[in-house]
């Protein structure tokens, strides 16, 4: 099964998509530079290194038939659950949550790995499912499989990743086909879970983030501060922006998490609506090309991989650009390709790698 890439397969790689991915990543590097050039640490160089590493991993993913990953997904699943449990038990607390393993200079985030594993597990779970609609037992089984890592991630707590999980689960269910009754039931369950979670599980700072969404001015110094400053940055950018490295909100550090979660605010401030439009358009073309690849998949597992992997990126993208303009609670979701950070970049590239992998091997058994 395991095939090294041969010439013919090499020619089947969607180079346009790969170019779009790299282009978007380089846009990110520019604005990481703009928002950190006055800080020590050369963040943009580190990001370039991460892009290189991620690209290498992407090609590694391409080299191996996705069916192999799907076949091994059960083992991956077991491993990632063990990692998540270990994390809760051992990992040192970083930034108030337990989501980081420290491994020398490199830091691995098991919940990022879990996203990829979930994509593969679901591909396997639904690959053999050829009915038009999901049955109750199958739904519950899939929920159970996804629920274990989800619960472990909620316990960290990493609300952003948990939400991304929910998006992947929901997307997979939609694809498999949900009856109206099931949709209503799931929504009711989600509502019950939401209300229950709000009163029992959510920490105060998380609740505050939700209430702040409704009234950011209610807490301008606390959690509302980020959203207010971000909105000021974006709004003050106007149509053409203040110019590269000339955004006052970012350069004078009024904007929080400039190079990570709020990188798009920097783009909005320094390049204005024009820049926002271009980056969103670029994103749209990229995601459209990925989504519409479902037609190129040779089997059901491939469809699920392309769809959920693309949804993973699309969901994070949408939530991030809604979050920084105050339309969604600040949940710590990065902007794929653009935000600084190796872990999320690597996850994104692996997801893209899976999509390219499926697309590349659309002709069966060649």
């Amino acid at each position, binding site marked *: 099964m395991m095939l090294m890439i041969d010439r013919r397969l090499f020619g089947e790689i969607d180079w346009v998509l790969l170019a779009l991915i790299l282009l978007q990543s380089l846009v990110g590097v520019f604005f990481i530079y703009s928002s950190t050039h006055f800080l020590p640490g050369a963040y943009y160089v580190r990001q370039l290194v991460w892009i290189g590493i991620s690209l290498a991993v992407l090609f590694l993913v391409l080299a191996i038939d996705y069916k192999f990953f799907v076949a091994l997904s059960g083992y991956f699943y077991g491993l990632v659950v063990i990692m998540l449990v270990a994390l809760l038990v051992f990992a040192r607390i970083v930034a108030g949550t337990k989501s980081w393993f420290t491994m020398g200079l490199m830091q691995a985030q098991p919940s990022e790995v879990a996203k990829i594993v979930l994509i593969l597990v679901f591909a396997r779970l639904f690959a053999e499912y*050829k009915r*038009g609609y999901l049955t109750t037992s199958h739904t519950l089984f899939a929920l159970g499989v996804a629920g274990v890592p989800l619960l472990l991630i909620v316990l960290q707590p990493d609300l952003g990743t948990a939400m991304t999980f929910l998006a992947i689960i929901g*997307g997979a269910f*939609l*694809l*498999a*086909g949900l009856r109206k009754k099931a949709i209503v039931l799931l929504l009711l369950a989600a509502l019950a879970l939401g209300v229950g979670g709000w009163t029992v599980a959510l920490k105060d700072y998380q609740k505050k983030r939700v209430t702040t969404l409704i009234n950011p001015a209610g807490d301008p110094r606390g959690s509302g501060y980020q959203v207010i*400053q971000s*909105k*000021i*940055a*974006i*709004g*003050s*950018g*106007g*149509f053409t922006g203040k110019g590269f490295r000339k955004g*006052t*909100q970012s350069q*004078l*550090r*009024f904007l929080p998490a400039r190079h990570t979660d709020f990188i798009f605010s920097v783009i*909005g401030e320094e390049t*204005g*609506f024009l820049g*926002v*439009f271009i980056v*969103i358009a670029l*994103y*749209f073309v990229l*995601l*459209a090309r990925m*989504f*519409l690849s*479902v*037609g190129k*998949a*040779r*089997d*059901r597992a491939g*469809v*699920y991989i*392309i*769809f959920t992997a693309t*949804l993973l990126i*699309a969901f994070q993208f*949408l939530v991030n*650009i*809604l979050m920084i*303009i105050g*339309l969604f609670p600040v949940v710590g979701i990065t902007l794929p390709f653009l935000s600084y950070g190796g872990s999320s970049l690597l996850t994104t590239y692996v997801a893209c790698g899976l999509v390219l992998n499926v697309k590349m091997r659309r002709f*069966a*058994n060649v």
Partner: protein
Amino acid sequence: MSRERIYEDLTLVQRRANVVFWIFAGLLLLTLSYYWKVQILEHKKYLGMAEANRIRMRELAAPRGLILDRAGGKLADNRASFKVSLNRENVKNESVSYPAICRLLGIDEPTLRNRIALHKDLPSHEPVVIADGLTPEDVAPIESRRLELPELVVESEPQRYYPGGGLAAHVVGYVQELTAEEIRARPDRKVRGGEMLGRTGVERQYDDILRGQDGIAYDVVDSLGRFQGEQSRQYPLKGRDITLTIDPALQAEAVKSLEGREGVIVALDAETGGVLALASYPTFDPNRFITRFTPAEWSQLTTDPLSPLENRAIRGLYAPGSIFKLVMSLGGLDGGFVTPETTVFCSGATEIYGSVRHCWFAPGHGAMDLAAAIRNSCNIYFYSLGRRMGIEPIAAAARRLGLGRRTGIDLVGEKEGLVPDTEWKSKTFHAPWFPGETISVAIGQGQLQVTPIQIAAMTALIARRGRPVQPHLLGGRDEPKTPDAPSPVYALTSFESVIEGMWRSVNEGGTGAQARVEGFEACGKTGSTQTISREAAERLALAGHPVKTHSWFSGFAPRVGPKIVVTVLVEFGGGGGATSGPIAGRLFEIYKKELESR
């Protein structure tokens, strides 16, 4: 792998995937439209908020206008001084930062905390001035610790400086920092930290002119309020310079003459009413108000029984004594109670309304006409005139000559004095006027109260033969012109008679003889006012504790075409002729030389 699995039917899932994609696309479009709303439609609002974030306005002190004497000498100057302010926003830990600041500035911590508490109502980004009047050497150690103490701001700003110290303190006045109460009392007004306000004297009177207009610097700050550079600035406009009528030589002499005494000297330009010299003693150093007092210094200054802060020229109330005989003469001549030829015999004492009244010259002056009575300042003559006139004509004459009301000099706080009459007596004491009181008033005693500036203005009016002038300090091109009076207050002949007596007093061995200046034709009148009753004074003198009288001299020179009026009052100075006369003489002398050298 079988062929059927290669060609399995995926259209259903692919169609569902497409539906999800287009839902996503729709959401993206909605999101983009919201970005349009924020970035294009609400751009102005957010740009304003971004500017408010990064721009902090800083007031730039305008240098006050200078105050110059008539020769262009600086009575109030500005010099560069450094001030250290505390930016409370940047204080991380008071218990570390405050002791460090105190060590650097050499102050104790309670003082520092008091200063900060004083300004607790100011917004926290407004710096509080904690030390000023510093030299470059003082601030060097602070500058070198800038990084350790980012909460300290060192700025250079113009500071008021009075080169003459106490020389013209009561004329120039002083400036002082606005107090917390004053800042609170005027919430409409933007107050700069450490802003100075003219408190007394010319500094207060012409504060609006001298103040100038503060500038604004628009500083760029980062999210921690740290200074990042200056965006632009509106430069401060320096206040206008003011030239006073003060003559530096006369002022210096006046202050010198009063040294070690309590008293007042006022010299007016007889032609314009401009104040050539105004000295009130004891005096104070106005520079001390700028560099802030210690509480001990302040209480010493305010509780000093000699009240050095009081401007006695406009606020000191004294009995005019024999100076009032000029009022009696003019009023008497006008009302026909006396003529220049009216003669009275002085035997040294006389009995009026059943009590014996003495002349100051016990042997008696003998028979005298009006001019001789003024020359000798004979009490008997004026007792007699007072009895004939009665209080109402006397009070009317006093008011006509400017007593009992402010002269209107351009200084704040001038007092009115008091001209008593029957109406005043019944209003104040609900008692009738007794004729005996008239006799006291006739020689300038009793309830009469005048300020030295009133006496100077009255003397100028006499010198100008009934045409008043407005005493004023503002000189140079802003100097107010006294409009020419259409007709004199009294008949010219009356003035000539009185002036004849004043001339004789100085030039023919009268009481004012010591004010005589060869070739300057000075005319004057002396006064020695009792501060306690004559009987009590005599008793104390017998017991070996002589109580001296206040010593007056008021006169002008030359007799024809008068140029200068000088009024001298020395508290407890003894006889007017002996103490105040020579002082006036020296001032006449100096001014005569000045006039000759012009």
